[in-house]
């Protein structure tokens, strides 16, 4: 009994210490944020850790670029649950921030609800598809265009006549970009077979590898992957089989596995963020759904220079000519949404 009490007391003391540390940390953060002088102020909410070097990391880079290019003071919060989205939006509004990004479709409803309360703050939901005057906007990326270009490369170069798409989970934007990839491949190779699988999550590399090996054993020699950390396993699978190549996605992954990544379907989040921030700073902003496609150069297909030698010149020429038509607007590959 005596032992019990001591343990409890010790536990309570430990809890107290932890609480104190947490409070001090929170106080520290708040202090730092509110100490910033007035001027152009921009905030970012991300749904995941900014260390992922992909969706969230790209957004944070965008925030830093706004700070460096526009002299803005910036703030970032990682928030998981929808309940916190609104709260954080409201907090930044109350502190008088000029621009707040909610990085992902999931932030859209919260932005639309909070927006009217703080008309002087601009709220942007990345990959949101609705807007509300005067200060809530969505930002949509034409990820289908570069996916279509990657499809042309795969469809032209496949030796087995079978290519594959492999994603984390079946989100509508991911599916839409996979469909564009398949359309691109069929545009140059109508008989090509396109396998499609989803891992079921975004971070299990071992599961990604097994899915890729299964696709390879069914004949796929080009795989378009969009699986974040699980994608690392897909690169590994390609390394273990000769003549299998993978497309990177979201960020430029050509350097991640230079021997098997034939090219990357890239979304330049910093460029997109800076474009919008500049509008807001120069008071040119109007609430609308902002479309950023190939013409804006926010989304691009980036071939891997290390593997340029294996891509026939006529394939490169075909990619360039289709890209030119996409930029000129004389070709539409359908769909218009974001990867995740």
């Amino acid at each position: 009994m005596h032992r019990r009490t001591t343990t409890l007391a010790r536990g309570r003391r430990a809890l107290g210490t932890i609480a104190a540390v947490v409070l001090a940390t929170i106080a520290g953060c708040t202090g730092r944020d509110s100490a910033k002088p007035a001027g152009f102020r921009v905030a970012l909410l991300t749904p995941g850790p900014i260390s992922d070097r992909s969706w969230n990391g790209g957004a944070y880079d965008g925030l830093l670029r706004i700070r460096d290019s526009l002299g803005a003071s910036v703030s970032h919060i990682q928030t998981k649950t929808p309940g916190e989205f609104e709260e954080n939006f409201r907090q930044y509004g109350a502190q008088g921030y000029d621009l707040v990004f909610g990085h992902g479709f999931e932030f859209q409803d919260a932005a639309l609800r909070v927006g009217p309360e703080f008309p002087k703050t601009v709220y942007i939901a990345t990959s949101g598809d609705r807007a509300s005057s005067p200060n809530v906007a969505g930002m949509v990326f034409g990820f289908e265009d570069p996916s279509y270009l990657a499809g042309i490369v795969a469809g032209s170069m496949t030796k087995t006549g079978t290519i594959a798409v492999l994603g984390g989970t079946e989100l509508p934007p991911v599916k839409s970009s996979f469909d564009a990839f398949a359309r691109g491949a069929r545009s140059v190779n109508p008989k090509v077979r396109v396998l499609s699988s989803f891992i079921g999550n975004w971070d299990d590399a071992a599961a990604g590898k097994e899915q890729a090996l299964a696709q390879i054993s069914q004949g796929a020699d080009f795989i378009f992957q969009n699986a974040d950390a699980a994608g690392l396993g897909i690169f590994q699978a390609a390394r273990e089989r000769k003549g299998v190549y993978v497309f990177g996605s979201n960020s430029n992954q050509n350097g991640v596995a230079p021997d098997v990544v034939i090219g990357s379907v890239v979304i330049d989040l910093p460029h997109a963020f800076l474009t919008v921030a500049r509008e807001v700073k120069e008071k040119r902003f109007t609430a609308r759904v902002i479309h950023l496609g190939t013409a804006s150069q926010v989304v691009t297909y980036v071939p891997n220079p290390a593997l340029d030698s294996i891509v026939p010149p006529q394939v490169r020429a075909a990619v360039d000519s289709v890209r030119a038509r996409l930029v000129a607007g004389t070709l539409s590959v359908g769909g218009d949404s974001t990867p995740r």
Partner: protein
Amino acid sequence: MIALAFIVQTLRIAIPYLLAAAGGVMSERAGLIALTLEGYMLGGAFGAAVGALTTGSPTVGAICGMVAGALLALLYAAASMKFRANQVVTGVAINLLVIGLTRFFLRLLYDSSSNSPRLPGFRGATGSGFGALVTNPLVWVGVVAFAFVGWLLARTAFGLRVRAIGEHPEAAASVGVNVERTRYIAVALSGVLAALGGVYLALDQHQFTDQMTAGRGFIALAATIFGRWEPKRVAVACLLFAAAETLQIQLQGTQHIPSQFVEMIPYVLTIVALAGVVGRAVPPAALGREEQV
């Protein structure tokens, strides 16, 4: 041909489950809840990465992984025996601790919070064929580990003591069994075995990635319970889970079934099997008890 591919893939997926579940049986038979398998695996994977990257040898990597697993297991054993902490709480804490520690050292050693540089694997052990499977020494370790645990528990004096203290530690102590020491050894062994499951993952990926075990330790724990703590049954449970996963992967290529539905298969199978086939599972009587000799 398709059947062979199916079997090879099933075995490949089953290896980490087999290793971790062998550890699960050891720990739970000795009366300590094996909630920490996930942490041992992740620690083992990270140890393997550090060892292999530092020395260039996958064998040294495997040894480092085992040491990491043993250390974590001893920490868990000390917390639950010496300090009589609740095993579920300690188990969860250790799993979280390992996630944080591996991420911290990943950042410190390799300047990345998502993955380590590429590391050497066992020579010849690449690809998806049967040859690659049988040339991977860790596959054999996985098979042997199960036979070893089965033999240890059923045929040795040590195994008898482990089983006794898992059922009734006071009775075992009354006939002169050193309960604490036996438990420390059993739990350390469970840490080494489960860590090998993580070693397999890291060497197979040629990389450590953040949280790369992705819940496999919990699947192994489920297999331990599903197999009613009997090594043979547990091995069958591991193979069954792996086969369900393989089925899921192979079916997806066909495109006719929505992916969400196919991804569900392993989980549905688990529930059906647990509810209908297995019957009542009776755990070792002293499992998870705090007040012990």
